[in-house]
């Protein structure tokens, strides 16, 4: 199969899967099988693109051209491929986990749930392989809209309120800022294609560049920069697999991915470095990562704590992008993958705990570690990866980010990164640690092991070991990341 | 004199008198048209403005009551400013207008000469207005019949006619038509004498349109006036016996279709829509037939529409 066909398949497979799902809604087993098969097929298709990319090619596929000079096109490049790999790979696990979770909780409307899920993945693939900013924007909006029913899945008053905030902020930022910035870019550069070295060179003054990049940063509401981060905690009303989707697989990753794409292929890191266009976004991100970590400390609800943790971790990516040097970009790109793997583990654990015990508050989890040893062990591993300690994958990302900020001689940021890591330890480690300390009465009567269903536990074990593997094979990842063409002269 | 009439209308609170004055105003303007050599227009204005439309007004006033309230001074300001502004633009423009009556104004140079010089040879009728109306700009006239037809459908849709069930249940308010005139025997006698000639005159106007002022349009209005006069004097019911509303309702459509039919036939004969030249063996005859038929169509539609509308109004006031 040629690369362009594979590209098309990447978007089509989840959509087709979704259609079959919808048709087979009556029988849960068939439906789940289809989900799984779709997931695997998609993953295979994504992997099929590797040879081309490793050979330095970037196949292009034009789907339609609604506006002259602005085709809807798909194109592969290393960064997108990485994102697609992460998303499609984790989708398989999320599907398995979702089956366990949804069945375990006897949720309603499961068909609608999996259908929207499939469409979300299709949108994520579209974002990953978007050939220009316009296409990216299209899929970005599509993702917003099709995740909305997922967020409000429960259908109660809380869910609706959360959903309203979710949709409100994402729509507002994307139309108000992102679309505007996109249009402006098009107006300045005459194109929106993603090109190595950027397209804005020679078209902008430093001030314009500064405003524009700031608009992009805030416009990508999915990247949850403060003060547009409120949707993430609000969306915590969703079922846990959805949270995994939001935090790890697709949504927030799509946000930071967009920012990375914009910095690398629209502005070009040289332009940002020369004009200092990233200043505002850089400081906002730094602020966000510190404050979000602090807020996370105060949260007792596990999912809320994880949500604020995500906000903080996303800002690492933004910081990396705005540093505008090779190390920063590498760090940021790795952070996407590493954080995805780490955070999904944590969410799987949170969900598993909920399924098994219906507990959501950290303070209630004392002693649970003995009942659910696998879950909490995985949680511990995930935490370490998020914090960025060896021997977990997360450390590579943090390492490169530190290098990047040192290279950019941004000492304050170096300090903020270190401080934030300390804070990460402070809010993540106690969760796992506390679970292994029993209250006196629990000690008196140790219960039997009572894990969540297998379908829940197995995926989280896989992802936990994944973080470990990412550390070991960090070099391969590094190789892929260095293939990202940062400057025009590179192929 | 026109101006004076208009100012009177502005001040009048009695709608009835306002309408009468308006009829008078129309009559005056038709005299002006006559002076300005626009005999056809004068004819039409007299029949429409002073005749039919006054009758419509009277019929409507019979239903809605006769007085209007005076305009409050504070409500005058905005319209006044608007009017003065618009008037100022017009006056401003008037300085560059060709002087009244001069014969080298642009409009006499470009399109019109052909009508005056060639129409006799191309179309036929000595009345150039008829040639232009029915042939050169026959499409406009087709549209115009469309307007009349639309008005008819609109009034019909809103007021309805042809069935008088609801009318009978209501007590009859004093109305302009029957009550006031039925007693006046003299008037009735005179009208008896008038109506037949009016109808005949209408037919004359219909066929004479080629040569003198007149044509389907004027004929239709005059014919309708005759019937309406009859209705005013003898009441609606006998009038409707002469002209059964149910059947009458078909006629506007028939007239329009007749007109369009000519056009369609000419299309089938290989010409463009409304190209009468292809209708007969030589163009001039074709034009002649075409104009005759479409004028008939116009006449039928206009007469039927006017009568229909009048019936609709008067049934409401029964």
């Amino acid at each position: 199969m040629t690369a362009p066909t594979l590209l098309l398949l990447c978007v089509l497979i989840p959509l087709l899967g979704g259609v079959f799902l919808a048709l087979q809604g009556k029988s849960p087993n068939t439906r789940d099988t289809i989900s799984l098969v779709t997931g695997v097929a998609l993953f295979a298709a994504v992997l099929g693109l590797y040879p081309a990319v490793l050979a330095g090619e970037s196949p292009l596929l034009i789907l339609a051209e609604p506006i002259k000079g602005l085709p809807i096109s798909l194109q592969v490049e290393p960064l997108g491929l990485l994102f697609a790999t992460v998303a499609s790979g984790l989708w398989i696990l999320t599907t398995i986990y979702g089956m366990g979770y949804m069945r375990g909780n006897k949720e309603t409307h499961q068909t609608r749930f999996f259908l929207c899920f499939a469409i979300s993945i299709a949108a994520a693939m579209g974002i990953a392989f978007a050939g220009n900013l316009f296409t990216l924007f299209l899929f970005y909006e599509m993702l917003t809209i099709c995740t909305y029913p997922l967020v409000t899945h429960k259908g109660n008053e809380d869910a609706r309120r959360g959903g309203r905030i979710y949709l409100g902020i994402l729509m507002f930022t994307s139309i108000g800022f992102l679309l505007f910035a996109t249009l402006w870019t098009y107006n300045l550069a005459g194109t929106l294609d993603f090109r190595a070295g950027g397209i804005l060179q020679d078209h902008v003054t430093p001030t314009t560049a500064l405003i524009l990049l700031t608009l992009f940063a805030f416009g990508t509401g999915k990247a949850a920069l403060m003060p547009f981060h409120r949707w993430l905690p609000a969306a915590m009303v969703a079922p846990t697999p959805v949270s995994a989707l939001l935090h790890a697989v697709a949504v927030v990753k799509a946000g930071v991915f967009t920012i990375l794409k914009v910095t690398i292929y629209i502005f070009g890191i040289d332009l940002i470095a020369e004009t200092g266009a990233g200043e505002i976004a850089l400081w906002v991100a730094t602020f966000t990562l510190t404050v979000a970590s602090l807020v996370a400390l105060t949260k007792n609800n596990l999912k809320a704590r994880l949500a604020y943790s995500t906000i903080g971790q996303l800002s690492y990516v933004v910081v990396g992008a705005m540093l505008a040097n090779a190390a920063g970009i590498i760090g940021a790109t790795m952070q996407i993958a590493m954080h995805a793997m780490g955070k999904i583990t944590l969410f799987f654990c949170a969900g598993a705990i909920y399924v098994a015990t219906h507990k959501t508050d950290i303070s209630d989890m004392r002693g649970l570690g003995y009942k659910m040893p696998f879950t909490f062990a995985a949680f511990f591993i995930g935490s370490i990866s998020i914090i960025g300690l060896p021997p977990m994958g997360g450390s590579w990302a943090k390492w490169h980010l530190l290098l990047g900020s040192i290279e950019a001689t941004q000492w304050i940021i170096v300090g903020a990164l270190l401080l934030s890591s300390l804070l990460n330890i402070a809010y993540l480690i106690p969760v796992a640690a506390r679970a292994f300390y029993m209250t006196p009465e629990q000690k008196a009567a140790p219960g039997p092991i009572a894990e969540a269903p297998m379908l829940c536990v197995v995926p989280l074990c896989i992802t936990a070991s994944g973080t470990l593997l990412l550390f070991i094979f960090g070099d391969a990842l590094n190789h892929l990341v260095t293939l990202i063409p940062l400057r025009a002269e590179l192929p | 004199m026109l101006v004076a009439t208009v100012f009177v209308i502005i001040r009048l609170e009695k709608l009835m008198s306002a309408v009468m004055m308006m009829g008078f105003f129309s009559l005056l303007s038709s005299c002006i048209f006559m002076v300005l050599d626009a005999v056809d227009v004068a004819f039409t204005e007299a029949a429409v403005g002073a005749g039919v439309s006054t009758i419509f007004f009277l019929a409507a006033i019979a239903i809605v009551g006769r007085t209007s309230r005076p305009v409050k001074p504070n409500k005058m300001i905005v319209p006044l400013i608007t009017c003065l502004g618009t008037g100022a633009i017009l006056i401003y423009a008037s300085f560059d207008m060709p002087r009244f009556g001069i014969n080298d104004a642009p409009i006499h140079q470009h399109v019109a000469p052909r009508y005056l010089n060639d129409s006799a040879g191309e179309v036929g009728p000595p009345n150039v207005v008829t040639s232009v109306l029915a042939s050169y700009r026959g499409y406009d006239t087709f549209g115009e019949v469309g307007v009349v037809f639309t008005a008819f459908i609109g009034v019909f849709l809103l007021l309805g006619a042809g069935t008088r069930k609801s009318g009978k249940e209501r007590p009859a308010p004093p109305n302009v038509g029957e009550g006031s005139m039925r007693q006046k025997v003299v008037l009735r006698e005179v009208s008896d004498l008038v109506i037949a000639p009016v109808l005949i005159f209408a037919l004359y106007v219909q066929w004479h349109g080629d040569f003198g002022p007149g044509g389907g349009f004027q004929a239709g209005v005059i014919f309708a006036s005759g019937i309406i006069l009859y209705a005013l004097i003898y009441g609606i019911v006998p009038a409707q016996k002469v002209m059964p509303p149910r059947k009458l309702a078909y006629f506007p459509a028939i007239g329009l279709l007749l007109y369009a039919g000519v056009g369609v036939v000419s299309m089938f004969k290989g010409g463009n829509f409304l190209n009468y030249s292809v209708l007969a063996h030589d163009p001039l005859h074709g034009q002649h037939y075409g104009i005759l038929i479409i004028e008939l169509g116009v006449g039928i539609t206009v007469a039927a529409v006017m009568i229909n509308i009048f019936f609709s109004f008067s049934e409401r006031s029964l």
Partner: protein
Amino acid sequence: MSNQLPAIVLLLTLLAAPLCSMMRNGDHAWKLAVSSAWLSVVAAFALLQQVWGGYEISYHMGGWPPPWGIEVRIDELSALVLVLVTLFGSIVLSALRESLRPIMRSHRHSLYYTTFLLCMASLIGITITGDAFNVFVFLEISSLSTYALIARGRDRRALTASFRYLIMGTIGATFILIAIGFIYMVTGTLNMADLAERLPAHADNRVVQASFAFFTIGIALKVAVFPLHYWLPNSYTYAPKATTAFLAATATKVSLYVMIRFVFDVYGIEFSFQQMQLGLLLVPLSIAGFLIASLTAVFQNDVKRLLAWSSVAQLSYMVLGLGLLNIDGLTASITHMFNHAMIKAGLFLALAAMIYRVESSKLSDLAGIGRTMPYTTAAFVILGLGLIGVPLTAGFVSKWYLISAALEKDWLWLAVLLIASSLMAVVYIGKIIDAAYFKPVSASHAQVKEVPPIILIPCWTFALLTIYFGIDTRLSAGLAGRVAQTLLGVGS
């Protein structure tokens, strides 16, 4: 026969109208009306195909060559408007029968279809004519039929709305008549192409200037350019439901088309924009228009009225596009003319379907309708997204061009305002969606059922078209772009 198409496209509906009026049976009349309307769609597409690529057709009515006779002239722009009127009109007409039932007794239906057909025919007539006075004649047919259509609304306020429209419309039409008389006075011709040739020589003539002023005011009344939009909200709100869909789709759009024709072709850009500075008038007014109208729409509690106000805002976008006077702006204007016609017709039709069951268009009464009438509401949502301008819908394409046009002028503030207005659209559409899906169904409407397919299919047709024209824009934006270049005299 294909060389007779310009006459045929008009005659199909214009002849069906009197035939319809002669039918006593409403159902038969409907069948006749629908079939003739769809045939005219075919004719319109055939014409579009003939002019595709920038050709022009000139058809001489009565066989008289212009400027003596009346010319029918079709180029790409008029063909597009023709497709707009016939296609959208026919779709609405197809849904009309069901939605008429509650309003009037059945034997009156044939009259209603007649009026509808007349309105459609006259709009076609306006679109294709190449004669200035002929525009006035057909404009009057369309106005009269529109007044009648509106006045048939259920609410008695429909009558006052219609009357108000009649007065304003007639003043507007008379102004246009004065304008036509003035240019005739100066040039001695009524043919539009001929006028276009002769007018530049008289650019300094005050009569031409006054004529332009009268024309602008007159047509602005018809287009409902702010602040002359006064008649529109009430008319749209109280007109019979499906009628609103038709009027919103076509009437104002055709008026806008006339405006484009005259301003760009007859008077010429140089005269209109450089000498008369039309841009200075249109731009601020339309900006004020879309801001105020969008804001007003946000605070409406009646969906029909909300959509009517939104129409005012959207019309302002189109006028703004004209006023900006660059290719993107004009492209946006024409594209949006087409797209908005489609979207608004669909929205009003979907709303009509809801009213058909719920018998109210108040937000509070539509609560939970997403559950009781899922298919209608889904179509409504798609169209609503189109109205906002969400990507992959038609609305996005036109907004894209409009904002590009603003940026091309380096008017950043305008782009910001446009986006702000779009956000207001998010709010007002969001309000409806919120009520439809997230408010509990009130007890009195719990038994509401989905509408019959004959209404549902037209709604979905519009919804799918909205998506289709969001992706394949050769017909809308592609054509509009070419037309814009021609009108502005840039390139070929």
